């Protein structure tokens, strides 16, 4: 998800502009000179200014130095026989979205399916995505949710939903 400075900079300009505008529309406090609108406006304008500078490439030279340091280290690592990350297609980067997608799945599914099945799916998918064999991923998906359930439900008394799998003997009603 590497984006050029121009893209991130212009995004910040837009975000800052929207924040400042949104702030300016907030109702003032009667009888006060200053209300809830001032802070978002100041921050929004600042953000838009910074975004503009980033898009224009100001401050880029500092990053070039840090990147040169990093490149030196990875070149040395490769020279030592440790392979650097292989080059992949554009779609490869989307793999990074698996963990947040699993959290979204947890959000939508946990009340309906219950904690244990949802957690099992989260663990199984994450483990397989990280390259585990089924021999490791399946037992992990069965055991780890039970362990987390024990810690949070039994020791910390966090109400985890039982959903369609009521198991009174492990505390799920």
């Amino acid at each position, binding site marked *: *998800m*590497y984006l050029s*400075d121009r893209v*991130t900079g212009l995004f*910040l300009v837009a975000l*800052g502009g929207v*924040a400042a505008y*949104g*702030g300016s529309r*907030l*109702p*003032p*406090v009667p009888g006060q000179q*200053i209300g*809830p609108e001032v*802070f*978002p406006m100041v*921050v*929004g304008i*600042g*953000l838009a200014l*910074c*975004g503009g500078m*980033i898009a224009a490439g100001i*401050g880029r*030279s*500092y*990053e070039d130095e*840090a990147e040169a340091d990093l490149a030196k*280290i990875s070149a*040395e690592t490769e020279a*030592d026989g*440790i*392979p650097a*990350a*292989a080059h992949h297609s554009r779609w*490869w*980067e989307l*793999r*990074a979205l698996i*963990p*947040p997608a699993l*959290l*979204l799945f*947890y*959000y939508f599914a*946990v009340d309906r399916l219950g904690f244990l099945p949802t957690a099992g799916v*989260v*663990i199984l998918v*994450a*483990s397989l995505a*990280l390259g*585990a064999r089924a021999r490791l991923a399946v037992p*992990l998906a069965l055991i780890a*949710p039970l362990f*987390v359930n024990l810690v*949070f439900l039994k020791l*910390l008394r*966090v109400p*985890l939903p039982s959903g369609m799998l009521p198991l009174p003997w492990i505390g799920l009603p």
Partner: protein
Amino acid sequence: MSNLTQAFALVFQTDVLLAILLASIYGLVVGSLPGLSATMATALLVPITFYLSPIAAIATIIAASAMAIFSGDIPGALLRIPGTPASAAYTDEAYAMTRKGQPELALGIGLWFSALGGIAGTLSLMLLAPPLAEMALQFSTYENFWLAFLGLMCATLVARSSPVKAIASMLLGLLVSCIGIENPAGTPRFTFGMTDLFGGIEVIPALVGVFAVSEVMRAMMSAEPPKLPFRRFGSILKNQWNLTKQYVAPQVRGNIVGIIIGVLPGAGADMAAWVSYSMAKRFSKTPEKFGTGHPEGLIEAGASNNASLASGWVPALLFAIPGDTITAIAIGVLYMKGLNPGPTLFTEQASSMYALYIIFIIANIIMIPLGIMMIRLASRVLRAPRSAIMPVIVLMCAVGSFATGNNLFAVLTVAAFGVLGYVMERNGYPVAAMVLGIIMGTMVEQNLVTSIMKSDGSVLPFFDRPVAAVLAAMTIGALLWPVFAWGWRRVRMAAA
């Protein structure tokens, strides 16, 4: 004196001692696993601290973070992969020592000087905090505003990135803190009609997202680190006393630099290690030996990163300004436990503060035996496959953030901040600056609005009082510094 007795009574309770021990083991294991940082270890602990007594909660944070910073050295020395970013500065040096057949020496230096550095940092906390608290009691909202603003600016100055991007990150954090009804008028601000946003973005889920989920996202993209071969170690602490006597200056310098960097808001153990390692090289009589497995740099940087850890608590306890990302999390825990940061903490809750010092000292002492055990077990712990650990972390992020408020919306917050943290890091926007903005936003706004109301719209009172004027000058200097630096470079380039 009675405060001290009370403090000992607070610490020497079964639950607190057990919390220290378990958190230490947890910190050692998590810190030693590459890709899991000390900040992440701390962030994942917070939901657990919810259910502990205040002192036990703080003890877990202190013990886990101190151990994790040390144990990050273990894979650095053995595999040339730093366990935490704080070890990255001297990983090459430690690994060179292992290649020379002295892994015990490299790991022993890491352990021994980390413990000594941690104790030096604790002493600085004990000596610095009370007089500063005395001074801070006299502060009005003007001073508090400038101090908070200065804290935010420091975070942007110390970032190893473009200062413009650092300021943008910080402003983004301030914008996030605008969400909710906690503002001067109590009006819903940027809530888009969602009741879940009325209370604002909760800090803990946001931190878990930024520091834990984004780390798992990065793991998805990188190759698994190589397995560590089984290895028998000789005596770990042999020669350490001789090294302590031989390298007094680097050690003291490392401690002092670590303490200073720890106190600066936003800069933590990793920055301390980088600065100290390069200072060791600059001041060394034998700089040519650096990089070939020479103990000097390891001693200075190892002492420095652990010293910064304790001194990072100084601004956190006094002004609720985090000294680093770990204390950013600790501030959340302090509020949660009714130990609201501020100078009055030292007058009204003195025994709790003494207890905190005692916990720091205990953690740094038990680091030595536990660290030796961890080093001996390292080849087993480091064999744990990443594909088994990371999935459990994803689950812990979900359940842990839910547990902080019994609110499923927190899980969405974690996911969103995970993506945000990942994208920011990938594009050179320092995440720590944003975190500081989120945590300090409400405080900055409150002090700004109250000050303007008090001054009846005039700017002059912001500079009237002597301390406020000094802080204002420092803040404006920090704000203009990147412009000066940029202009100076231009002049030099034109001259060349």
